[in-house]
């Protein structure tokens, strides 16, 4: 099927994607399907930045149904598409939004109405019904709503997009660090890279360069002398030993710290907090945030208070918005494609924002922008192309810089 599809011809337009997270992988997949020649570079292992570190939630969109309906609608649409094009990459475990306090209950009507308005299918459950399904929930819960959340593997799901692009002829380099962008007559025409496998340096040339580096996108954009409105906004997650719930358990309230528990293999992952930093490479794991994950999480599932810790870590979200935002919570979760021709630089596009659940949709919109720029008249087809399993990613010998 995908293996026999035609590959981009030698004289097809060539796009260099900087950044091997979910966004870069999905874009490589999208553009190879439209006949574009793709080279992608990632300074570390694929998904080593933000993508692999997230809690592994396939959003139903319910989290955003009250405060950010645009994101909520994106999520529920992409939720259905991803389940169809990545079969076997998601648990069919669903999620619960659980009201614990009277204050949570004040949010209930808005929540239910928001989900309905965004097209998110819900089922309202009495506390006893929720407890039958999830016996370790806080027995004092006041209400629960079931939503189509799911658990995913944060690395292996996105890796399917890399695998499919690779089998269609995309050249994907991990351990290839961008040292600078090549600029010629006001246009970005490539990148100077260092291959960490061989130690050699060289230039990669392309008709267009895409900056898909998430919270690092400001660093890359600066190499072209342009700015992108990105706020690296880390959050702390805490993985506990033991699968304390089967469904994804969310607190029913406006976004806050420690309000989600994602069961993942034999672990329960509690997330998350939110603040903003200047440098996404220097992420602390503040002890008080870890303690808050446990404290807030135990309000949803009391056993969390005593559960044995497996790991605590931070991941930087690439949120779009003003750099002076305090916590990052007020910034939109949606994504943005920036054609830097508006900054006077040709051949350079930044795609940023978004989240794992919307990686395909981000790539579609960015792919549309890129194809318009390159004069390619082929629509996106990723909604209906089943991706190869992640194991296919390793089935071919990798190429390196000569």
């Amino acid at each position, binding site marked *: 099927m995908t293996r026999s599809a035609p590959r981009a011809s030698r004289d097809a337009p060539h796009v260099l994607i900087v950044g091997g997270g979910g966004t870069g992988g999905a874009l490589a997949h999208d553009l190879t399907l439209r006949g574009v020649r793709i080279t992608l570079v990632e300074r570390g292992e694929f998904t*080593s930045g933000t993508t692999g570190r997230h809690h592994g939630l396939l959003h139903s969109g319910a989290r955003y149904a009250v405060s950010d309906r645009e994101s909520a609608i994106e999520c529920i649409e992409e939720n259905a598409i991803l389940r169809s094009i990545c079969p076997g990459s998601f648990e*069919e475990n669903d999620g619960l939004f659980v009201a614990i306090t009277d204050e949570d209950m004040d949010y209930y009507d808005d929540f239910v109405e928001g989900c309905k308005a965004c097209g998110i299918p819900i089922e309202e459950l009495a506390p006893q019904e929720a407890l039958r399904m999830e016996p370790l929930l806080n027995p004092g819960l006041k209400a629960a709503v079931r939503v189509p959340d799911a658990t995913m*593997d944060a690395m292996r799901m996105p890796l399917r997009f890399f695998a499919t692009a690779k089998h269609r002829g995309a050249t994907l380099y991990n351990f290839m660090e961008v040292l600078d962008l090549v600029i010629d007559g006001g246009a970005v025409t490539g990148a100077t890279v260092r291959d960490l496998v061989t130690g050699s340096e060289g230039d990669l040339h392309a008709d267009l360069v895409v900056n898909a580096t998430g919270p690092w996108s400001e660093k890359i954009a600066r190499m072209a002398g342009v700015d992108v409105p990105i706020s690296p906004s880390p959050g702390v997650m805490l993985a506990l030993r033991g699968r304390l719930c089967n469904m994804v358990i969310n607190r029913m309230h406006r976004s806050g710290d420690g309000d989600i528990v994602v069961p993942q*293999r*034999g672990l329960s992952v509690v997330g998350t907090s939110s603040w903003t930093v200047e440098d996404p490479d*220097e992420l602390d794991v503040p002890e008080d945030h870890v303690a808050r994950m446990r404290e807030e999480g135990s309000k949803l599932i009391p056993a969390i208070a005593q559960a044995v810790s497996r790991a605590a870590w931070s991941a930087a979200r690439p949120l779009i918005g003003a750099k002076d935002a305090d916590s990052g919570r007020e910034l939109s979760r949606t994504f943005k494609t920036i054609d830097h021709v508006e900054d006077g630089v040709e051949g350079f596009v930044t795609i940023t924002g978004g989240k794992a659940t919307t990686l395909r949709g981000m790539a579609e919109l960015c792919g549309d922008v890129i194809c318009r720029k390159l004069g390619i008249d082929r629509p996106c087809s990723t909604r209906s192309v089943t991706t190869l399993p992640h194991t296919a990613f390793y089935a071919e010998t990798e190429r*390196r810089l000569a």
Partner: protein
Amino acid sequence: MSAADPLPTTRRFRVYRYKRGDPGWRFDPFEVPVGPRTTVLDALRWIQLHRDRTLALRHSCFHASCGTCGMQVNGREALACVTLADPLGSTITVEPLANIPVLTDLVVDMGQVFARFPDEIGTVRMSEKPSRASPPDGIDTYERFEDCIECGLCLSACPVSATSDAYVGPAALAAAQRLLEEPRGVDPERILDWAGDPAGAWRCHVAFECTEACPSNVRPAERIMALRGALAAGRRTVATVTPG
């Protein structure tokens, strides 16, 4: 490293280095500040950011779920993301996994690991929709994704794999046994044929190093013993296959 931690002490890291085209490998020494919560992965990333940007290593999830940061730490297989540096002594030696070709520095060629698995292996187990009427059976021990995180630690620790490339190794055999337990449409006879091959279950020397090394409770050695039981029950003993 957390801002709230006590002042870090300095540890000496000896890190395996190799770039393609180098005449050989070497250890590079680095002095790294280490606090009580610093993991080996934190320390290696500190080296990358502050001492040597050309150091290559694999990581992704930071919580022992993806299996990318497997390496040898002081001679033992470990996931760097959940291995604290503090208890490891004043000198910490970090090497790539054994029995898998090294691409560069601490990076091994995982393609060589995946090539060993039976073709039918998927990673994520499809799960049933939770019922409204009753909790899923065994909720307290429920595990939905496959336990195996494909990290390669068992292969690195296996003494048979150290002496023979022909052996498929513990992870692949454990995966085959999972398919016997839960076939998901796969023909068990085909799996038994695969596992009964001279490169398969009978080559294990029962050292149990794989189970010792596994960070994800897969217990490959026990699975291999179960496979042998199934093979013997089907009269697929070592005597019925051609020695390879």
